[in-house]
């Protein structure tokens, strides 16, 4: 039982008949996590945490921003069995469908943030019991985000009510961090949330001088270049060796499956986890921001025949033609970071997306945030649009592009018949701060627009 579930239990409703052992555990947890337990962790009770049912809905007379095709004015969308069943200006509405008047409203596909730790961390500081992002050790290919995603994290509702309906949630520690999942931001269990439970392997590509990924901007210390280069080469070699071992492991297991007279190879949970990735069946996400790291990651992926995606990509504009040539997509997480170098132009990172778009590099825009600020995803795209990215691409960069990069573009990211009904109904431009979300559908389920924040607002706004 994960600690967060315990916390939710003890904070919400304590079971008077709990066995003694459980009580002792709870008391121990209370002692260890005194600050964490002082306030309620997780969704407010009114949310319930229960997956809402799928229904049949018709959103009528709305402006439908399909993203993949032209906008449809005064259009109707029919949602049934979790999918977009029909779409257009002349659509027959099934009997029994709940009708939603969409006049003056716009329907968008739900936004997707491809670079988060949503559900893996509740409170970053002072509540270590709620942090499940980084496993101990350098090589953890078998650590899977979907195992530790807390479906009752308050971050999920807070994020989705602002129109972000799906995310990639990634582990972050060590050299091989583990496996990322594509999730919908609603569900009672991790499985109900999972769109692709094992979507990508996450590798922090080693940085000369210090670890790649994580927060940048460390104070520059004098570095012994010889030592630093040797260290990063050693780290790359560590990753290479494990991936090669996994290749060999996969071959040995296959051979044994065909011919049981062969000596039975030992099972390894770590190598087993890597097999689909070293065979190029699934994506490998490399966290890399600087030019050298990205070049290294691309070479490394080519050598080992992996399917690479760059996560971070602050310097991607510098190697745009290489990214294009190698067809390596980039999940940009640094649009709103301060420029990397003191003498970078002030808009270097604001412009990054626009430069990739002009070169024809596949990219998407992410908040790169652990959880609390993922709801700000549209403003990352908005800033890119303020600095040269066409508005239509800014919208795609948080809807269709992340879906395509994560290989779920056939199921999500735009409004098309047959796609998953992840829809956001707004009273204005989806990326504009002042617009408000009016209705929300995830997986064809109408999701209430309340969250920990709306509940606290309702509780206190009229206090006299």
């Amino acid at each position, binding site marked *: 039982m994960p600690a967060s579930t315990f916390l939710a239990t003890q904070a919400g409703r304590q079971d008077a008949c709990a066995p003694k052992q459980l009580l002792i555990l709870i008391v121990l947890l209370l002692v260890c996590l005194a600050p964490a337990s002082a306030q309620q962790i997780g969704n407010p009770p009114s949310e319930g945490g229960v997956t809402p049912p799928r229904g049949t809905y018709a959103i009528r007379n709305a402006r439908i921003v399909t993203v993949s095709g032209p906008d449809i004015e005064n259009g109707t969308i029919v949602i049934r069995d979790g999918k977009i069943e029909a779409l257009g200006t002349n659509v027959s509405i099934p009997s029994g469908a709940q009708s939603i008047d969409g006049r003056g409203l716009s329907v968008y596909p739900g936004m997707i943030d491809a670079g988060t730790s949503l559900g893996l961390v*509740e409170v970053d500081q002072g509540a270590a019991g709620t942090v499940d992002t980084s496993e101990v050790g350098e090589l953890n290919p078998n650590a899977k985000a979907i195992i530790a995603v807390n479906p009752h994290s308050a971050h999920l509702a807070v994020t989705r009510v602002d129109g972000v309906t799906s995310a990639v949630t990634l582990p972050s520690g060590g050299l091989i961090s583990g496996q990322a999942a594509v999730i919908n931001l609603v569900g009672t269990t991790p499985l109900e949330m999972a769109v692709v439970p094992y979507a990508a392997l996450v590798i922090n590509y080693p940085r000369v001088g210090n670890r790649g990924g994580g927060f940048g901007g460390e104070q520059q210390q004098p570095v012994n270049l010889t030592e630093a280069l040797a260290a990063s080469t050693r780290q790359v070699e560590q990753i290479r060796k494990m991936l090669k071992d996994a290749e060999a492991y996969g071959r040995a297991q296959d051979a044994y499956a065909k011919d049981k007279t062969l000596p039975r190879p030992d099972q390894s949970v770590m190598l087993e986890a890597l097999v689909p990735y070293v065979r190029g069946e699934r994506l490998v996400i490399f966290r890399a921001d600087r030019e050298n790291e990205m070049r290294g990651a691309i070479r490394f992926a080519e050598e080992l025949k992996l399917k690479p995606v760059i996560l971070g990509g602050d310097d991607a504009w510098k190697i745009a033609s290489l990214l294009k040539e190698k067809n390596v997509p980039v999940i940009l997480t640094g649009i709103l970071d*301060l420029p990397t170098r003191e003498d970078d132009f002030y808009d270097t990172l604001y412009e990054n997306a626009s430069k990739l778009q002009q070169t024809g590099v596949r990219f998407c825009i992410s908040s790169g945030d652990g959880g609390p600020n993922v709801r700000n995803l549209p403003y990352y795209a908005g800033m890119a649009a303020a600095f040269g990215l066409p508005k239509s691409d800014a919208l795609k960069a948080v809807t269709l592009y992340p879906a395509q990069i994560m290989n779920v573009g056939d199921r999500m990211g735009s409004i098309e018949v047959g796609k998953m009904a992840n829809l956001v109904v707004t009273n204005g431009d989806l990326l504009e701060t002042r617009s408000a979300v009016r209705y929300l559908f995830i997986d064809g389920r109408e999701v209430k627009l309340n969250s920990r924040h709306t509940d606290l607002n309702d509780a206190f706004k009229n206090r006299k």
Partner: protein
Amino acid sequence: MKRTATARILLLTVVWCTSWINVPAQQPRPAEPNETLIRNATLLTITHGTLENSDILIRRGKIAAIGKGLKAAADARVIDAGGKFVMPGIIDCHSHSMLDAINEGSLSVTSMVRTRDVLNPNDVDLYRALAGGVTSLNLLHGSANAIGGLNTVVKIKYGHPIDEFIFPGAMPGIKFALGENPKRSNSTVLPGVTRRYPGTRMGVEEVIRDAFTRARDYKKTWDEYRAAVARRDKNLIPPRRDLQLEPLVEVLEGKRYVHAHCYRADEILMLINIADEFGFKVKTFQHVLEGYKVAKEIARHGAGASIFADNWAYKIEAYDAIPYNAAIMTRAGVVVSMNSDSDERARRLNIEAAKAMRYGDLTEEQALKLVTINPAIQLGIQDRVGSLEVGKDADLAIWNGHPLSVYSRVDTTFIDGEIFFDRQQDLAQRADLLKERAQLEQAEPNRPPARGVSPQAPRGRRPSHADDDLWEGDIYQP
């Protein structure tokens, strides 16, 4: 005259020598004209509504006229801003930009230290803030202790001598801090090191109570001495000056504003009570994440609130933060501002302001006030800046679209009528700067060695949040 000329040459030499580090704004500027006329813009005056297709005339650093069809002198700089928006310069009421040190955290009361002593005018993040339409900053001491150091209010006159940054007439202030940071809850205490008092919210209250008890005694001692001097008593010995207590006496006398970092409702009420008891006012609660729970008490005390738009859950005391905070407190009558507490966020405070429309339905005008006149009031500079009014300082920015839209950016930022950021100038310089950079990289001393220890890099950027109030996970060394 001669000395001035020499100083100028010296300054130019310094500017030239350092230009490779602080690239964009250190270029010599052309002489500023006496008058600037911005024509045909939409003026977001803040205090007098929105004026379409209007002009604004700047003369010798002040707003000289606002209206339609204004005329300027023949040698004036005339900017056609058709389709563009002009708003007052954004005022960031919580910044640690350009500070070479943030926290004197060795004691729980450090009212003797001043941010004024650690200002670095070459911090490139100042230029980046200008490019976001920001013109003034409230530079606060950190939140490591219950009573921190003294603040400095500046205009971002990037490229000017440091003395010209200081905002003339701004009210002096002091930083207080409550909750996890002065408790040092999230700091690692090294083995063998005694923890600094206080370690609880109880102790934080006692530190403040003790300091003001001493300050009250100290004030009495001086009052008695001054009365004796006035009576022309003989053989008087003046009391010993106490640099720690002097700023607190100024607080008691209403001559210095208290800017108090806080999170939880209980600690907000605690400080209100102690302030009432000692007879001083809290000018602003900073961050004040749970302000919405006690909005009426804050309003009754007359305090302002300077907040994040929507930050939450980065630590336990931030778990009940909600983005409706601005709206709830505004409706309760609290003067609210949106601050950055971050060199990164300072660049997009316009969007932070817009969030108050999304969460809690503030009007456009209310949202704009959060980053203009309201922070000006909180810093005692509302007669100089914070709105477009004739007679006020010409601290303003031209935006290429409505500043509350995510699709807008700043074209030009003025302070005292002088251009400190101009996008077209910035773009025009780039080719030359890149060429210069390439040449410098080729120069022998700058080539990276193939092996061995790299040369000491120029002073690196401060971590973007390691020393602000969001992130306090530092090692505590007394």
